[in-house]
């Protein structure tokens, strides 16, 4: 179901295969993602979609009830890693080196935020991912983002202990 974008490199193979179950497990292990209530809704060859439930403690403007931009930043940063893992087929450790978010309009108070990320390019060391977020209609987005990740296959896995 995943990994069609790039042929897995030998150094990636020791990491767990990317599946909905392994990604859900990874999300479950990340305290901030749990705290925000973010869930992966779907995953494809190089794409992933997640949902952030609206919650009063996540509001950034008490006068309007609009979510804090940082909450959407976190949702997108996290989702870009999932799309990257979907693209390369293995949960290779990675870190964000650059993230740009354009906040097209305020998130609608009371509504969930849905985001979709697509991994556009992977090299031996880098991955480039684009993302969009919306409330109700994908064609009426609230944010665009582009994100660059660095792959760290020399690091220990975060999902499970690598098999020796």
């Amino acid at each position, binding site marked *: 179901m995943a990994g069609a974008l790039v042929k897995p490199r030998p150094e990636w193979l020791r990491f767990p295969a990317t599946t909905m179950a392994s990604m859900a497990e990874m999300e479950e292990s990340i305290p*901030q*993602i749990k705290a925000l209530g973010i869930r992966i809704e779907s995953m494809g060859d190089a794409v992933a979609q997640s949902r952030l439930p609206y919650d009063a403690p996540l*509001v950034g403007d008490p006068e309007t009830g609009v979510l*804090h931009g*940082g909450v959407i930043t976190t949702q997108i940063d996290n989702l870009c890693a999932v799309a990257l893992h979907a693209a390369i087929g293995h949960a290779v450790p990675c870190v964000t080196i650059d993230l740009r978010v354009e906040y097209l309009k305020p998130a609608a108070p009371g509504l969930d935020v849905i985001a979709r990320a697509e991994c556009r390019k992977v090299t031996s060391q880098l991955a480039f991912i684009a993302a969009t977020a919306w409330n109700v209609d994908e064609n009426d987005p609230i944010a665009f983002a582009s994100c660059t990740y660095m792959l760290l296959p020399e690091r220990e896995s975060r999902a499970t202990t690598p098999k020796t």
Partner: protein
Amino acid sequence: MTATLVDAVRAARETGDYQTVLESIPYMKFLGLVVEADEKGPICRMPGSDHIIGNPVLPAIHGGVVGALLESTAIMHIMWSRESLHVPKIINLTVEYLRSARVVDTYAQAVITKQGRRIANMRVEAWQADREKPVAAAHAHFLLPREDA
């Protein structure tokens, strides 16, 4: 209803204490941010805590949370600099991640690089033990509420 944000900002301009303003913004409170100020403006401190972790193996603070700290600090700076009684609307944010952010106190301070009537251009830097070794830096644009003009 308790004191409004505008009341809190007005009071802070008298006392110089912006913690009440910060705590009236739910997500800043959720992150446990504490605001102090020097002559250059507010310094926001985010204490290390379990719920802000993004990588439990290292462990490290979630990159998105570092982004949220940088954005929050820019927002506090704009309100401190008397440019707005309301939360300014973010237009965009670019975060450069420079070092892994360990789960300890993280500080951030912003500067206004260009102040227009409607737009503020901001630079923000975050650091931990050593200010000379920032963990992240951002630049961002904010829309200033027009009713303040």
